[in-house]
């Protein structure tokens, strides 16, 4: 028998299930240019929309004259707020409980704000007409500094809510104040600070940046007036949520709206929000009766859709003399721009920033976040992170370094001393999270051993001596980071967006010949869902991954889900996939038992088949079972083999990692060479190691960009200074180092397959690691902290201020 039947291990390998570095099924299309991105969609009679945008950051719109624009051949319509107002669509709700102008309603609040929408037969005519729309502005005083925005006599930005004392997240104490979000025990924390041996304090600014996926945002809206159905193809990271929001704000019944996310050219959080372009395209399609395409250009993307970060974090960390952390205090001034359009779960106006105690057993903590309006673009999205966890990780990982300097203790040792121990999991943090699993000491020791940490420190000390002797002008920095992520939002009891619980879903249909299709509520933007979700299923139901089609992004066919961001696809939809697979297997077991003429309990699962217990030669493989499900009348069992699961995770998952970065800093030019970057990630069960490694490389490179130069900078008039890829730093292959990747595996105890998610970890851990390396290079000269981004001149300035230029 064994000669004919492959062994279980051989059969398992053929499935290409969990743990297989299966090649991606997506790539056959993508490598030959056969992807189908939103700008590739071309419908008969399709029109193009283009925005007139405000050149001013704060101004009253006195008048709009579109007559000349309407004379341009090909122009079909020019929409302004006055046209949208009768429909109630000149404002739209934001994901954060605020509202945002779709088109300027009396004033503009940031440079690049949408003022009018031109619709024409082609994009060239639309662009010509945009130039001819005459808008008369009356400039108003501009506030780009959130601290100045809170001064008593600061200009009133949001006149529409100037008198409202209550916002979506509680009391407002100033006309430019949005909310205060407080967590933890202030009194106890301040008592610890007052009595501590040592308190390290620092203002840490995480600058404003932007996810900048290579494909910008866009959509094609098509209102079919014959059947009353609206179809919108778009760059949506959460298609079902978009459908519900579109229905609620337009009044079109939800069953008459179909949202389709085609291939998406990267998202990184940029494509979570709802933007005026979507609303205007829908309205324009309704008005004209024709499909309308809108695709923003890169300058519009950087200026107007979805910034990230912009957190001013005042941190205080208390410790004993020998380095035991006793408390953490933090106050954040959060710059939200002109509208609060943060993409956070409703109850978390500062996202999961309260994960800021990091990987450390900190007994008491307090934090408060004040959200503030300024004359900058709205957004505040989770740029390759889970709702402000990047800011939190950056705060704690910088504060640990600051504390190590103050204590005179090695920063690696300080971390080790304060890690949550393996035996403390599940661990409840001072700010209320329950960490599911971790083994930080093992990961840390592995990382430090891999890089030869002691030798690096010795080399660094030698370098400082050579520098002092005038033999070199380069300093060496060793950046350390140990981060804990919080992903997989999330339990519905805690997490919703606009009232929609953050569960996710999977629906599976097994075909009679034993292949399958599974549909999910998520949507890939490059993560390879079509590959990895099939692997989860292959291991659960014994059908080769190659025979399973994964489909996402069409709300008419996919089950309801909250989409892909915050590394939630694997923790939530991946779990739904496993659970739905188990339902399939349960029914398959009954069918197999019937076919084998034994009791249900007398068969057991064996990789890809059910076997009679104790008689493995008697079995029914999954393909046979599938066929039977469709062609046999089995008493007590419905025909067919399908299942659906809506998964509400009992908890978040908490991936973690240990990173080490070694840099050489040219003191005279401010240039930083990344000599080495080692990244150990623990994302629980590893579904596809090849894809995990790719995610790590990519996330680290986005971290490199953010730490070393990428920012959305404004001048004092609110002009965006970094509006093109000349000035907005995206590194090329030349500036990007080679990465070493490594792992440990600590499964999540509550996830069906133990997976935790990985997409965002390298960004969360990478940014503080690069930043710590740069700061560390100057430690021997009394330097403590410098704000990112560490571009040449800012690094040069550290050296200059330390007197290193003689």
């Amino acid at each position, binding site marked *: 028998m064994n000669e004919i039947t492959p062994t279980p291990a051989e059969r398992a390998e053929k499935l290409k299930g969990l743990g297989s570095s299966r090649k991606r099924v997506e790539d056959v299309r993508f490598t030959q240019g056969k992807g189908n991105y939103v700008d590739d969609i071309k419908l008969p009679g399709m029109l193009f929309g283009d925005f007139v945008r405000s050149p001013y950051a704060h101004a009253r719109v006195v008048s709009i004259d579109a007559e000349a624009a309407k004379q341009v051949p090909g122009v079909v319509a020019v929409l302004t707020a006055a046209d949208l107002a009768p429909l109630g669509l000149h404002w739209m709700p934001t994901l954060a409980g605020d509202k945002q102008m779709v088109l300027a309603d009396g004033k503009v609040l940031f440079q690049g704000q949408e003022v009018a929408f031109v619709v024409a037969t082609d994009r060239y005519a639309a662009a010509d007409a945009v130039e001819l729309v005459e808008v008369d502005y009356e400039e108003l005083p501009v506030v780009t500094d959130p601290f100045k925005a809170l001064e008593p006599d600061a200009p009133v930005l949001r006149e529409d809510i100037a008198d409202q004392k209550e916002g979506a997240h509680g009391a407002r104490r100033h006309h430019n104040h949005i909310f205060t979000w407080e967590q933890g025990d202030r009194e106890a924390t301040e008592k610890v600070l007052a009595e501590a041996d040592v308190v390290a304090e620092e203002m840490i600014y995480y600058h404003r940046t932007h996810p900048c996926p290579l494909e910008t945002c866009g959509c094609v809206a098509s209102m079919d007036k014959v059947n009353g159905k609206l179809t919108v193809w778009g760059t949506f990271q959460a298609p079902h949520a978009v459908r519900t929001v579109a229905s609620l704000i337009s009044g079109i019944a939800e069953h008459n709206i179909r949202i389709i996310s085609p291939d998406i050219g990267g998202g990184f959080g940029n494509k979570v929000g709802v933007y005026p372009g979507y609303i205007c395209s829908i309205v324009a399609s309704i008005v004209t009766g024709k499909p309308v395409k809108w695709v923003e250009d890169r300058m519009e993307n950087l200026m107007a859709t979805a910034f990230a970060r912009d957190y001013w974090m005042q941190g205080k960390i208390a410790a004993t003399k020998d380095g035991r952390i006793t408390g953490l205090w933090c106050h954040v001034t959060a710059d939200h721009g002109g509208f609060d359009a943060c993409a956070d779960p409703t109850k978390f106006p500062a996202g999961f920033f309260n994960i800021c105690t990091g990987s450390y057993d900190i007994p008491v903590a307090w934090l408060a976040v004040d959200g503030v309006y300024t004359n900058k673009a709205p957004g505040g999205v989770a740029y390759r992170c889970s709702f402000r966890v990047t800011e939190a990780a950056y705060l704690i990982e910088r504060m640990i370094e600051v504390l190590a300097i103050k204590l005179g203790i090695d920063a690696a040792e300080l971390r080790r001393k304060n890690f949550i121990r393996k035996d403390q999991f599940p661990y409840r943090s001072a700010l209320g999270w329950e960490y599911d699993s971790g083994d930080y000491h093992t990961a840390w020791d592995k990382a430090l051993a891999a890089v030869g940490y002691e030798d690096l420190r010795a080399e660094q000390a030698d370098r400082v001596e050579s520098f002092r002797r005038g033999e070199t002008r380069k300093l060496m920095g060793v950046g350390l980071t140990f981060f804990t992520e919080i992903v997989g939002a999330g339990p519905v009891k805690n997490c919703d967006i606009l009232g929609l619980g953050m569960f996710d879903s999977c629906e599976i249909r097994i075909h009679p010949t034993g292949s399958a299709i599974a549909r999910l509520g998520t949507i890939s933007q490059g993560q390879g869902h079509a590959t990895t979700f099939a692997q989860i299923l292959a291991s659960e139901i014994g059908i080769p991954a190659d025979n399973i089609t994964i489909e996402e992004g069409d709300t008419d066919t996919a089950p309801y889900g909250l989409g892909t961001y915050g590394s939630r696809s694997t923790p939530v939809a991946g779990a739904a996939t496993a659970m739905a697979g188990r339902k399939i297997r349960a029914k398959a077991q009954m069918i197999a038992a019937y076919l084998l003429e034994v009791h249900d309990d007398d068969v057991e699962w064996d990789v890809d088949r059910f076997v009679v217990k104790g008689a493995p030669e008697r079995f029914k493989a999954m393909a046979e079972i599938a066929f039977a499900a469709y062609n046999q009348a089995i008493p007590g069992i419905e025909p067919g083999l399908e299942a659906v699961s809506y998964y509400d995770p009992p908890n978040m998952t908490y991936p973690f990692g240990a990173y080490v970065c070694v840099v050489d800093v040219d003191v005279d*030019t401010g240039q930083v060479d990344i000599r080495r970057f080692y990244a150990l990630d623990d994302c629980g069960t590893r579904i596809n190691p090849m894809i995990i490694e790719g995610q790590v490389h990519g996330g680290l490179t986005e971290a490199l960009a953010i730490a070393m130069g990428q920012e959305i900078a404004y001048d004092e008039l609110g002009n965006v200074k970094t509006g093109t890829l*000349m000035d907005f730093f995206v590194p090329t292959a030349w500036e990007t180092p080679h990465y070493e990747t490594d792992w440990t595996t600590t499964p999540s105890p509550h996830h069906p397959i133990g997976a935790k998610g990985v997409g965002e970890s390298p960004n969360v851990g990478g940014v503080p690691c690069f930043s710590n390396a740069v700061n560390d290079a100057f430690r021997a000269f009394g330097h403590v902290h410098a704000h990112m981004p560490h571009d040449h*001149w800012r690094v040069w300035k550290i050296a200059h201020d330390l007197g290193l230029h003689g």
Partner: protein
Amino acid sequence: MIPGAFEYHRPETLGEATGLLSQLGDSARVLAGGHSLIPMMKLRMAAPEHLIDLAAIADLRGIAVGDDIRIGAMVTQAELIAHDGLAAACPLLREAALQIADPQVRYVGTVGGNVANGDPGNDMPGLMQCLGARYSLAGPGGTREVAARDFYISAYETARADDEILTGILVPHPAPGTGYAYEKQKRKIGDYATAAAAVTIGRNGASVAMTNLADRPIWSEAAGKALAAGDAAGAVAAALAEIDPGDDNRGPAEFKRHVAGVMLRRAIDRARARMG
């Protein structure tokens, strides 16, 4: 980003091109590689009604290494880099061209366009000043030559008259054994220089030029003289006295001034090490 409408012309002779340019006047712009002009047009910061594409004019192509080195205006950076004879005769050109923009831009971007448009961020102007190059200009009244060192007036303002076309660049052979270097600090591939310095040192003297540190490239006669006399510190001081950098996203003027000194010092060191 969509450019405004224009009429496209593709003359096959230089005479035709200059004729069109005089006939169309201000409404026309000459198109070389287009990597400066087309982005400006897409941003609608330039809106010519006529574009005169020089690509079909055979006379503007080619590199000839003879008594002088002649580089046709429409020679691309990639062609310049690939030309071994040129690299042997004047290796500084290849070294600098490799630091311009990125591979794709170098396939299309031309040497003539780079020197002619007067963008202080461009690398070739300072380089040509350093090398003592002359530019050939053709206009309705015939042709003339202007020294690169006399060509640049201020940002986008040059000695080229509106009805003239820059047709080629004449570079004198560096004396045998001349040391050379182009040092450029930039934030990333594709960026303009934060500061850059071109240096040659040979038997007949030395030459120093700086890029993107004023509203035009800066060739410093005093720096060259000091360097020829063996005074590197004096050369750096002299060059720094002539630059006038502004603040931008690369950093404030103070920083650029410092980096300019570092780049120049490094270029001098490298050029000296290469002297034959």
